[in-house]
């Protein structure tokens, strides 16, 4: 006799309970992951956002003859201890470039010293009570205030935290990524096309395939060693430059691009290839006219993800000397440069308290760039995806 409806329902109860339990466990896992992400972002933003504000002081600068020799003479003695050293340093230079300034005076906003900045942000500083009182008074008078730190986005690194900016690192990153993309994308895509569409399936190609998959799992610092040994020591590529950094990261990005391109090519239905062969396409025409256009969104997404990964990479760049002190924006691919994660790494090692927020600020910028890169990957995919 077969089970009655009630018996079946009885059995089903347990099964339904199990699936409900599994559903809640997965939701819990998602919530936990989301919470970690939220805490991380909140922490980074709370630490990093102050870096986008900077204390400024409104002072009078007198371009006297004394000031032409020693910038300190140009400002009121009371102020000279609380403004950034960088301000007084450039005054003689300004006067040399523009002799007509001699004898004039000008009222303007200048950078405050890091101590003032940190004091106003409520962080512990080495200022005595007199100085603190004076700053409070100046704030009341409106001579000291917090302003948007545009310099953080327009200047290079500096040993003075109030002067340090991320611009040279951003430019360094952009140039390095250009080199990486220019090398890794064509080589990676063509390799994948060969392996997927042309190569015979034999021992050799299987060996190559296994090795490419393994390459993707190799610790990135080894690529740095390879870059040092091959590119710098053997080929003599100048060290610390976007060129050598980009070449090293290209090695690291290649397997990612190859693997994602192969996946994208494999996802193109075989029937499209048959249709193309059937009308008399050569192999290359099949790839160029039919397979590649369909695989392109996947290839681009994979490449951008690979690039984003390379962008966040620090270890191999340390080995090829890209953790350098770069105060000026790099102008060419063969000049020393630094990249954003390396800049964050440098700042995190600075003893001064004011660099803590620079570190967090650098991370915020890096994250913003990475998120926008990944978002563009998603958008590209959406735009070029063919749903037919």
């Amino acid at each position, binding site marked *: 006799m077969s089970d009655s409806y009630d018996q079946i329902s009885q059995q089903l109860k347990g099964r339904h309970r199990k699936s409900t339990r599994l559903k809640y466990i997965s939701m819990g896992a998602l919530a936990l992951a989301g919470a970690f992400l939220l805490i991380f972002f909140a922490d980074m933003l709370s630490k990093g956002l102050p870096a986008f504000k900077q204390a400024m002081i409104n002072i009078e600068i007198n371009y006297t003859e004394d000031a032409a020799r020693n910038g300190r003479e140009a400002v009121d003695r009371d102020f000279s201890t609380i403004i950034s050293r960088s301000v007084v340093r450039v005054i003689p230079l300004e006067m040399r470039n523009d002799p007509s300034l001699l004898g004039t005076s000008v009222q303007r906003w200048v950078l405050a010293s890091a101590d003032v900045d940190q004091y106003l942000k409520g962080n512990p500083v080495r200022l005595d009570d007199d100085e603190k009182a004076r700053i409070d008074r100046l704030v009341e008078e409106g001579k000291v205030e917090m302003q948007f730190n545009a310099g953080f986005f327009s200047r290079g690194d500096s040993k003075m935290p109030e002067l340090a900016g991320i611009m040279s690192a951003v430019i360094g990153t952009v140039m390095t990524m250009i080199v990486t993309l220019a090398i890794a994308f064509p080589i990676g895509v063509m390799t994948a096309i060969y392996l997927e569409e042309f190569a015979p399936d034999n021992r050799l190609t299987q060996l190559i395939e296994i090795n490419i998959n393994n390459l993707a799992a190799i610790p990135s610092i080894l690529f740095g060693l390879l870059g040092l040994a091959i590119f710098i020591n053997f080929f003599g590529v100048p060290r610390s430059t976007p060129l050598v950094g980009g070449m090293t990261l290209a090695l690291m990005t290649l397997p990612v691009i190859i693997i994602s391109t192969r996946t994208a090519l494999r996802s193109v239905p075989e*029937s499209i290839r*048959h*249709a*193309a*062969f*059937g009308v*008399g*396409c050569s192999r290359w025409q099949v790839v160029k*006219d039919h397979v590649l*256009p369909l695989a392109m969104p996947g290839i681009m997404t994979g490449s951008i993800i690979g690039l984003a990964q390379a962008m966040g990479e620090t270890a191999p760049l340390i080995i090829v000397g890209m953790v350098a002190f770069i105060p000026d924006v790099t102008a060419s691919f063969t000049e020393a440069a630094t990249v954003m994660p390396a800049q964050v790494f440098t700042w995190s090692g600075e003893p001064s308290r004011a660099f803590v927020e620079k570190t967090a600020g650098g991370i915020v910028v890096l994250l913003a760039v990475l998120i926008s890169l990944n978002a563009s990957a998603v958008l590209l995919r959406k735009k070029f995806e063919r749903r037919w």
Partner: protein
Amino acid sequence: MNSQAPQFSQQMAPAAGQPYTRNEQACHDLSIRVRDLNLWYGKNQALMDLNIDLFQKNVTALIGPSGCGKSTFLRCLNRMNDLIPSVHTEGLVEMDGRDVNAAKMDEVALRRRVGMVFQKPNPFPKSIYENVAYAPRMHDIVSRKAEQDELVEKALRDAGLWNEVKDKLQEPGTSLSGGQQQRLCIARAIAVQPDVILMDEPTSALDPISTAIIEDLMDKLKEKFTIITVTHNMQQAARVADYTAFFHLGEIIEYNDTKVMFSTPAKKKTEDYISGRYG
């Protein structure tokens, strides 16, 4: 020669009203001549000593149970089997007096002469227009835009699709219904003006109405093209084919005029199959 294989030269009967000529002599209406064709997938032999003559401007149906090698044989005719690395063939497939498997025969040139329509409609993910225009442009059959437009219209008319799509040529080919897609694939195949069109179960994914349209189309197209079609549907073979070949386990059991074969099959196996006793 396999002892079970039909003695082809004796077995070939002249069709009523067809100018039949003997195998060994050149004959003007012979399209493809196959002699002692063997094919292996790795170590498995899929085709055994096939001998068959396929005639021009006729529909030849290949029937037989699943796995009997009829689709494999069809793909030998335009060397689509080359795409499968494990396949190895021996024997002669001769088209217009040329061995298609010869080293100097370019398979791209061959496929220009021998078009193919697949089991599942597989239009390119491009516009309807582009689906048809792509191959002629690639083969330099057309150069000017006007010529191309003309050719696209003609191919779509020949495929009986023009009236349905003339107002939406720029829409994706995949937006059409299954039957329309299959006719688009036929238009794509005839646009390069081949001699032979291979059809691999062209109606098996379609509803009866679309199937009937395609069958009518095959009837019209045989005025211009040699059509070789694989089908699982014996009524379809009886309806559209002038000649029918019955495949079983990689061999051609019987090949004859369709009417003769369906009324008086020469072999027991053929009779069992077409009467629905197995397969």
